[in-house]
């Protein structure tokens, strides 16, 4: 580790990893594992399966490194691989749903907001995570990729092998279900 730097950046590590340096790739794994695991967990809603998906995604990344041109950031590239791995395991995932994920997420630091606002926000976030988990996988995947990770409908459609219209419909349905779950008390009469 060079003085004045916290750690080598992705670029240096990628060059070394692409040349076959397993130690450099191992560093990349350690840098990105939490982010990768979080996405896998959001998609699968299953800790054990999320760990499997993360591991498989990193192994696929290692194999595919020679093809990685660096057009996107490594983290973005990893996200795409995670989505592909998780999506291809979606049927398996349906059989494995077990433990809830909403208790141990790390809450973001609540800066410059009142304790009441922070408490309310934390409560909503907790309910939101539970509501997300309750969505059907195809719907949850689209909501997570669009509203959490900011993917475009086109990117989602391409990676999930669905049409843009289907992505929009799933997003619409997912948001509707989340809204009903979060604010059922204002579910007004028709």
């Amino acid at each position, binding site marked *: 580790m060079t003085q004045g730097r916290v750690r080598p950046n992705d670029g240096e590590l990628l060059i070394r990893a692409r040349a076959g340096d397993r130690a450099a790739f191992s560093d990349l794994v350690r840098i990105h594992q939490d982010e990768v695991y979080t996405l896998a967990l*959001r998609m699968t809603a299953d800790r054990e399966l999320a760990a499997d998906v993360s*591991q498989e995604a990193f*192994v696929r990344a*290692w*194999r595919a490194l020679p093809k990685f041109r660096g057009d996107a950031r490594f983290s973005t590239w990893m996200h795409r691989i995670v989505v592909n791995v998780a999506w291809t395991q979606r049927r398996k995932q349906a059989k494995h749903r077990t433990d809830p994920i909403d208790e141990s997420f790390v809450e973001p630091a609540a800066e410059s907001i009142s304790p009441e606002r922070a408490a309310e926000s934390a409560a909503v976030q907790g309910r939101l995570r539970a509501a997300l988990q309750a969505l059907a996988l195809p719907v949850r995947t689209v909501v997570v990729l669009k509203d959490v990770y900011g993917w475009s409908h086109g990117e989602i459609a391409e990676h999930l092998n669905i049409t843009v219209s289907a992505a929009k419909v799933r997003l619409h349905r997912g948001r509707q279900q989340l809204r009903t779950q979060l604010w059922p008390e204002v579910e007004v009469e028709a």
Partner: protein
Amino acid sequence: MKAACLVVRSLAPSTEGVPPSGMLGDHVSRCLRCQAELARYSRLRRHLGALADEVEPAPPPLATDVDREVGSGSDDTTPPRRVPQVGRVAATGGAVAAAAAGAAAVIVWRHSKAAV
């Protein structure tokens, strides 16, 4: 509930924070119920976006398991293509040049010996 409210309600999940325009927009500007409904979806999107900042710690064995998989050298784990490194290329080039120089020296020595 008015018909316009029902329309707003059905469109609200896909508005992306952009209020409806035209007659529907006029209705929303006067209808607190519709404004509240649109605001709920804005809050929902904001809360979803905030999830991006939350990171779940990966289970400790993950990195070790990946190391093992990648480093196992098993048939199904193909390492990346080796890219020739500058140092390796230079060393190879140097060895070839030295060999060529040696051969040339032998030829010159034999010629000079034959001439004598």
